């Protein structure tokens, strides 16, 4: 148990024992090596399940949203005098806290309905990179010790540098400490990170047809399982355009064009709202390079409107606000 785990367990226990929260959402050991799973704890006796390490991949904000929405719905039919508030505690690293900020800005729940247990984070292990390094062999055991990841497969034991297998979004993330928190389990210096848009610039420099070829090739892999949407904290609508039938935005069936349209629309919904947590990339069973496209929206958000998703509570999202003198270089004027 590291110091951070000790601190979050103590804080979670205190919050639950003193009835300050009804539920703590965190990470527990997974059933597979080098994996963790979300855990929902409602009693102080269970806090020893909580872990925090470089195998914690999920952005837990989506579960906070789900728990509170469910509670709000259940309360709708309760008499005003009997209404109860539910408070959810959550283990939040940088990107998770940014998603919480987005929920708060979008008035999904009140600040007093959440208790943010902040944890410093220097990144998580990307399953795709790990598979690449181990030639796709099944991982039977693994451990992380400081900067070294030891992976055991049927073919033998490999030692890897942590940085080699960290997710791409973590390598360019400067939000190593949460942007909001009620309790801090520790702090680390912000990463001196590489240019987060280097990949976008490189892609934009390709020709239109090269870009289209790449985009359509990636989207052809999509089986529209909607896992990327389901895991995304910013995709919380109860009914989604992707399943609407009147109008049918995305056709049922396996037409590649519908894959493309689905992702164009899903990603467009992320304009100014994607916190680059990488959860969608992590869950995609087809290994689709979603980040390459999402980052473009992030770049425009920053370049056009000087905004960064979920960083400041009092800064409205770009599509919920405007300035009279917003750049309009794309507006066509006839000669």
């Amino acid at each position, binding site marked *: 148990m590291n110091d951070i785990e000790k601190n979050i367990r103590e804080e979670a226990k205190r919050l639950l024992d003193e009835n300050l929260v009804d539920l703590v959402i965190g990470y527990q050991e997974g059933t597979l090596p080098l994996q963790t799973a979300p855990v929902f704890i409602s009693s102080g006796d269970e806090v020893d399940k909580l872990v925090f390490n470089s195998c914690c991949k999920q952005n837990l904000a989506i579960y906070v949203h789900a728990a509170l929405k469910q509670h709000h719905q259940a309360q709708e039919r309760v008499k005003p005098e009997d209404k109860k508030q539910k408070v959810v505690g959550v283990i939040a690293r940088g990107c998770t806290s940014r998603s919480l900020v987005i929920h708060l800005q979008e008035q999904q729940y009140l600040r007093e309905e959440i208790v943010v247990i902040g944890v410093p984070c220097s990144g998580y292990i990307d399953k795709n990179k790990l598979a690449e390094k181990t030639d796709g062999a099944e991982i039977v055991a693994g451990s992380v010790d400081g900067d070294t990841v030891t992976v055991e497969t049927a073919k033998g034991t490999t030692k890897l540098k942590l940085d080699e297998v960290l997710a791409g979004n973590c390598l360019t993330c400067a939000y190593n400490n949460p942007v909001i928190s009620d309790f801090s389990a520790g702090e680390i210096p912000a990463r001196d990170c590489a240019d987060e848009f280097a990949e976008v610039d490189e892609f934009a420099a390709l020709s239109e047809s090269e*870009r*289209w070829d790449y985009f359509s090739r990636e989207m052809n892999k999509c089986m529209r399982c909607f896992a990327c949407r389901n895991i995304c904290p910013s995709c919380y609508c109860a009914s989604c355009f992707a399943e609407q039938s009147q109008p049918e935005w995305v056709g049922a069936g396996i037409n590649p*064009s519908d894959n493309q*349209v689905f992702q164009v629309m899903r990603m467009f919904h992320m*304009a100014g709202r994607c916190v680059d947590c990488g959860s969608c990339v992590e869950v995609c069973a087809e290994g689709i390079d979603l980040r390459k496209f999402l980052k473009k929206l992030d770049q*425009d958000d920053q370049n056009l409107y000087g905004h960064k998703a979920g960083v400041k509570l009092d800064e409205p999202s770009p*599509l919920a606000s405007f300035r009279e003198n917003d750049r309009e270089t794309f507006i*066509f*004027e006839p000669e």
Partner: protein
Amino acid sequence: MSQTTEEWEPKIVALVCNWCTYAGADLAGISRLQYPPNVRLIRLPCSGRINPFYIVKALQHGADGVLVSGCHPGECHYISGNLIARRKFAFLNNFLNYIGIEADRTIFTWVSASEGDKFARVIDEVTAKVKALGPATRLIKTD
């Protein structure tokens, strides 16, 4: 299509605001201005009512070009519909181009109710631009 490229005429979907561009198109008609018959106007209450998905869907269903036009900034009937729309369009336009949709397939402009001549010129030029691109091939749904 059996037509040769010389006779190929593009299909252009124009999503326009009722209060300005649509009236501008009317004025162009009343003034007997000539413009190419390639556009199909779809009238909406405000450019703010133009769901960006309409643009994507038009492309998916075979539009060779999509023109979007509303009131000039500051002149929206609903005060700020077009200012909010402008941000959506900026994101979408950049994004579509980023994934490889030709820049001239989607065109955004402002045309007021008194600009019948501007409307005719816009249609002229947009049609020429889309013609130069040739038939759309990307994002299109084929069975």
